[in-house]
C-alpha cells in the first residue's frame, strides 16, 4: 500500500492480523509494549474477514453468538488505545538478527520492521495458488506459466491455455475468448460446478468454434526453450495431443502455505510451529508463535486458545523489551487501560 511507512521500528512485530494477532496488541499494550502488525491480506481480520465474515461464532466467552466480522471490529476497538501500526497487503519474506538481539523483518514490498520480539500469529499461513502435478510447470513460471491473470491485456492476440473447472477458469475463458488469439480450456471432468450461466456460455463458445474445450482431460507436460512453447494434453478418448501455447494458466484455487516463514530456521511439524506451551516461544530466541500456526501437546485450534496464548507470550516477551524492569502482573479492573 502506497501510504504505508516503509521503515518501521517497534517493540513487537506481529505477523498476521487475524483475531489472535489483534488481541496480542491488547496484551502487549497492558505491558506498555508497542506493536506493529503485518499481513499478506489487504485488510485486518485474517480468516474471520476473508473466509467467514458473516458466520456466527459461538465459543467466544461473553458472546453467546457473534459474527466473524463483528468480532474483528470489536477487537480493533479494543486495541485502539494502544495505537498499533499496520503493514497490510504485504507478505513477510525474511528476518535478520542484529548484534543487539533485535530482529528486522522484510516484506515482499520492501518494507522493514525492526523489533525486539517477533510474534508469529500467521493462522493457516498465506494462501498461494495450488499447483497441479505437471512436468515442467515450475520451470516455466514467469516464462509462460502464471497462476493468476493480473493484466488481461497482456494476453491480447496470444495463444492461451487455461486449466481448471471452477468459476475462475470459466470466467477467464469467457473473457479471454474475445481478447486472446486462441483460447483452450482443459478440464478433468465433463461438467462444471461453477455458475450454470458461465458453464453454458463456455459450451456455446466451444460449439461455435470460438474456443477449444478438452473435457476428461489433463495437461501432462510443458515444453519450451527458455519460454513455454508447447504442452501435451491427455484425454480418456484420444492419444496425447501436443498443442502450441504462449501462455498457460492453471486455475486450481488457493491453498494455505507457511510461505517464507518455513525458511527461517524455525522447527516445523506438519505445517505448524512447535512451541513451548509455557510461553509459546519457538526454538529461536525472541520469536514466538501463537494461534492456529503453533502446535504443542493438547493444542486446540480455537480463537479463545489463541487469546490465552497471546497473553502468556506477551508476559514472556516483556523481558526482551524491558530487560531492566521487573514484570508486575496487573488486573485491568484495578489499573484500567493506560493508552499510549
Amino acid at each position, binding site marked *: 500500500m502506497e501510504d504505508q511507512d516503509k521503515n518501521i521500528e517497534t517493540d513487537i512485530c506481529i505477523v498476521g492480523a487475524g483475531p489472535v494477532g489483534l488481541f496480542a496488541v491488547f496484551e502487549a499494550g497492558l505491558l506498555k509494549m508497542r506493536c506493529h502488525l503485518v499481513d499478506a491480506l489487504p485488510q485486518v481480520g485474517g480468516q474471520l474477514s476473508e473466509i467467514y465474515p458473516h458466520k456466527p461464532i459461538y465459543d467466544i466467552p461473553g458472546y453467546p453468538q457473534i459474527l466473524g466480522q463483528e468480532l474483528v471490529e470489536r477487537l480493533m476497538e479494543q486495541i485502539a488505545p494502544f495505537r498499533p501500526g499496520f503493514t497490510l497487503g504485504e507478505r513477510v519474506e525474511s528476518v535478520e538478527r542484529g548484534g543487539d538481539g533485535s530482529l528486522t523483518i522484510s516484506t515482499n514490498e520492501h518494507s522493514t520492521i525492526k523489533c525486539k520480539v517477533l510474534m508469529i500469529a500467521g493462522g493457516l499461513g498465506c494462501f498461494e495458488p*495450488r499447483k497441479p502435478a505437471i512436468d515442467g510447470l515450475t520451470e516455466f513460471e514467469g516464462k509462460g506459466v502464471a497462476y493468476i491473470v493480473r493484466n488481461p491485456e497482456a494476453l491480447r492476440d496470444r495463444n492461451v491455455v487455461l486449466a481448471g473447472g471452477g468459476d475462475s477458469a470459466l470466467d477467464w475463458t469467457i473473457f479471454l475468448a474475445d481478447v486472446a488469439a486462441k483460447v483452450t480450456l482443459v478440464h478433468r471432468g465433463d461438467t462444471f*460446478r461453477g455458475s450454470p450461466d458461465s458453464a453454458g456460455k463456455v459450451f456455446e463458445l466451444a460449439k461455435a468454434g470460438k474456443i477449444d474445450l478438452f473435457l476428461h482431460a489433463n495437461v501432462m507436460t510443458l515444453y519450451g526453450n527458455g519460454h513455454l512453447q508447447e504442452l501435451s494434453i491427455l484425454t480418456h478418448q484420444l492419444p496425447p495431443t501436443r498443442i502450441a501455447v504462449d501462455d498457460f494458466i492453471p486455475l486450481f484455487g488457493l*491453498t494455505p502455505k507457511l510461505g517464507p516463514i518455513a525458511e527461517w530456521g524455525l522447527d516445523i511439524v506438519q505445517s505448524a510451529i512447535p512451541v513451548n506451551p509455557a510461553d509459546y516461544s519457538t526454538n529461536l530466541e525472541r520469536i514466538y508463535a501463537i494461534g492456529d500456526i503453533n502446535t504443542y501437546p493438547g493444542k486446540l485450534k480455537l480463537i479463545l486458545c489463541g487469546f490465552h496464548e497471546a497473553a502468556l507470550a506477551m508476559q514472556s516477551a516483556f523481558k526482551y523489551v524491558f530487560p531492566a524492569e521487573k514484570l508486575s502482573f496487573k488486573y485491568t479492573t484495578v489499573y484500567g487501560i493506560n493508552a499510549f
Partner: protein
Amino acid sequence: MNPDGSQAPLEVPVNINLSLMEVLRAGGYPIPGTCGGIALCATCAVDILSGNEKLSPAGDQELDMLDLLPQSTAATRLGCQIRLRPEMDGMIIRIISES
C-alpha cells in the same frame, strides 16, 4: 494406504465421533489438516478405494473444493468431511499427497 503405496490397517474405537482427517492425523499419517476441518485447504484429500457406498454424499462446500483439486477423481473425498461410523468398517482409503 499411504501415498507411497504401503498399506496399514487403521483401528478406530467405536463411536469415536471424529472425522477421518482427525483420526488419521492422530495416527501419525501424513495428513496436515491445515484448515482444521472446514473444507478449505484440501490437505486431507483421500481416495476411497472401496466402501464408497457407505459414505454420505459430499456436500456443496466439499464438492466445490474437490472441483479445484487437480488430482481429484470420482473417488476423491475430503477426510475432514467424513465422520466415522461403525458401518464404515473395512473401507480402504488412499491418502493423496499434495506436494
